[in-house]
């Protein structure tokens, strides 16, 4: 009944290669975008934005980035936290060095800088694979955090080693700093999420995405049929790091406002984003969003429910949180090893046939 191609005729090549070929799918995504852009900003409160929406949007970008590298190109990375730190510190240096530069461009520039760093650390991927590559990216994680801690130039030699984002505006509205209105920071992040998600969707449908997947599925076979492993792997590292750099930049400048590399971009961030794509689904854009939502929203909802609504002691709720989130991760991995995205795919298959399954 739903999600059927039947009756959805394409009369031109442009129509045939549009982002969402199925009409119903397209309409749902368009409705979601309209809702997110035109309705949600009006109901945004400080709490909703700062505790729920911003972490969700920013981690969705990071998860998209890691999904490109790990999910589509098959290169395992544990350096996400370090690359986010590169984005954050680039943003800080650019913001303080060029006070007049628009924050929008600073975020994109930070992404480009991170892409460069990502390519550098992606070079070992040409020789090593699998777990060995994971260890190499782990080295990137520790090296980058160490460097941002050690070299005073990165934090402008401030006494505490903290970096803090000064106020910057877009179209006259404060985006960073304490005076940013919640709907402004929300929209600013949403623009990036929307653009990057669209870009990912189209990248993964095209030549580049197909060559990534070829390398992922069997790199020797891919090489034989003419996929250049150097260019493919490094492009995956570059684009993935570009995304992660942007998320790190937004995470620091728009969400946190002040950050300290060891705490904000430590190894646990790398694992968090990795869990997001594993739970959400490797090699799926919807999975990146679902995973980010799962990992960001669940602790908050549990806390709201148990601590604020039922009124249990906060330490009990914190422990319970670990148990429930951990348990759910195990549960999902057993029941649906391919993540929430696979669950969604199954639902879609069912919906196509419903209500006549035979």
């Amino acid at each position: 009944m739903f999600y059927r191609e039947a009756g959805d005729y394409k009369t031109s090549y442009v129509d045939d290669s549009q982002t969402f070929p199925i009409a119903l799918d397209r309409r749902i995504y368009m409705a979601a975008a309209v809702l997110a852009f035109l309705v949600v900003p009006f109901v945004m409160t400080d709490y909703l934005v700062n505790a729920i929406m911003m972490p969700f949007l920013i981690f969705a970008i990071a998860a998209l980035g890691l999904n490109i590298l790990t999910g589509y190109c098959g290169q395992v990375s544990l350096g996400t936290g370090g690359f986010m730190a590169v984005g954050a510190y680039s943003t800080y240096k650019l913001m303080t060095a060029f006070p007049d530069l628009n924050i929008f461009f600073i975020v994109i520039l930070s992404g480009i800088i991170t892409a460069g760093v990502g390519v550098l650390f992606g070079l070992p991927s040409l020789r090593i694979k699998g777990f060995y590559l994971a260890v190499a990216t782990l080295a990137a994680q520790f090296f980058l955090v160490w460097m941002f801690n050690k070299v005073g130039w990165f934090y402008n030699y401030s006494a505490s080693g903290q970096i803090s984002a000064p106020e910057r505006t877009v179209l006259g509205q404060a985006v960073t700093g304490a005076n940013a209105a919640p709907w402004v920071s929300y929209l600013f992040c949403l623009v990036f999420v929307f653009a990057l998600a669209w870009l990912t969707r189209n990248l993964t449908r095209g030549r580049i995405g197909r060559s990534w997947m070829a390398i992922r599925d069997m790199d020797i076979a891919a090489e034989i049929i003419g996929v250049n492993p150097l260019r493919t792997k490094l492009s995956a590292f570059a684009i993935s790091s570009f995304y992660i750099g942007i998320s790190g930049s937004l995470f620091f400048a728009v969400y946190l406002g002040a950050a300290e590399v060891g705490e904000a971009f430590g190894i646990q961030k790398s694992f968090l984003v990795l869990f997001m794509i594993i739970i959400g689904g490797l090699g799926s854009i919807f999975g990146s969003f679902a995973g980010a939502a799962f990992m960001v929203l669940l602790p908050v909802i549990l806390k709201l429910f148990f601590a604020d609504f039922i009124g249990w002691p906060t330490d009990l709720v914190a422990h319970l949180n670990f148990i429930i989130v951990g348990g759910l991760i195990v549960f999902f991995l057993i029941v649906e090893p391919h993540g929430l995205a696979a669950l969604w795919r199954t639902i879609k298959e069912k919906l196509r046939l419903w209500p006549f399954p035979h």
Partner: protein
Amino acid sequence: MKLKTLVMAACTTAIVAGPAAADLVFPSLDYRTGPYAANGIPFADGYADYFTLLNQRDGGIGGVEARVLQCETGYNTERGVECYESTKGEGALVYQPLSTGITYQLIPKATADDIPIHSMGYGRTSAANGEVFSHVFNYPANYWQAASGIILDILDRNDGNLEGKKIALVYHNSAYGREPIRTLQELGTQHGFELIELAVDHPGQEQRSQWLQVRRDRPDYVIMWGWGVMNQVAIQEAVNIRYPMDNFYGVWWSGSENDVLPAGEGADGYRSVTFHSVGDDYPIFDDIQEHVVDAGLASGAGDQIGTVLYNRGMYAAMLAAEAARTAQDIHGVAEITPAMMRDGMEALEMTEERMTELGLPGFGPEFSVSCQNHGGPGESAIAEWDYDTQAWSIVTEYRAPDMGVIQPLIDEDSAAYAAENDLPMTRCPAEDEMMMSVEDILAEMRTIGLRLDELADMLEAAQ
């Protein structure tokens, strides 16, 4: 759109959960889980118990009940921000995050929201400059004054001469641990000692290499800026390399029972700087026993009463309650707002007389806060751990820190913050100005015991 439904559900829960009762809300951004829980629990218990005592014994502050909103941060800045956002809507009067990282995060946010922060003995040290930081207070003492206090004690033991000595700083590799470095470097050039910096990464369980370096370099003194599990491990490692304990100093966050007990007898003689007294030999503990513990209202497990960090949490709560009382006096209203609370904090005066009234005679030094100085005098004493009696005791007098070194650093750092954030450097009215500010008039009225409504009556009568 499952997500949206979830968000809306969460939103409704938040709205339903927030009762709009008339009370004084004191959020407690505490941590009872994670690697810092051993230190977070006693502080949170002391903070909560003091307000319970006020509610039970006096019926609140100025007749209005105090409500402590607990929110678990796990010493994590992101959860700290979430806690801040979820509690600020309930009329939170003052934030005490007990984490330097979270304090840094909240300084701009809380200032924009017109809610004061009290980072007692932690946070951004230069916030002592009230000219720049309108909503941040770190009285009665800050990190740089702690560093100076430790060096003063070392100077005392060396007849005022540290020429050629080596002092190692073992610090938590975070904003917190890095705070004292500038002051110690400055003091080092002044007194001629060499500073060895040894960073320990979060959470601080692995310190073998740092202590190997201590063993190799043989510093004359070791100063520790640690928190949570890092403290216990450092003291144990120092015992392992047989480092003389009386040459080992901790900041006030590295000097509680939890830190020294695991090392057993070896920790005997370990020293720590402090800005308030230790022990449970104060009349207030009888009241806590009677009104809180016996009534079954003690926070947590109720087994922390009288420990160093419990006392500090209680002291923090006491200062907050006193500031709220001051605010009630200034504005003549019982149900104060966060903005009024800020005025109260800025006009806070702790006298020996008042502390005796509160059942805490001689618990901390006397001090007063002003618009210019949000930091207080910063006097500190040295406490020593005695293994045999299993107790901390104060072994020196309260000494004034070397403000000649600290004040320029405070001015420099706060000026940098003001420049970064485009803030005025002179918020407070100059002292010799003829015009009095509203705050000054209010403070003046408070000292002569005049209320706003009384003043209005007088003005009306005069017309």
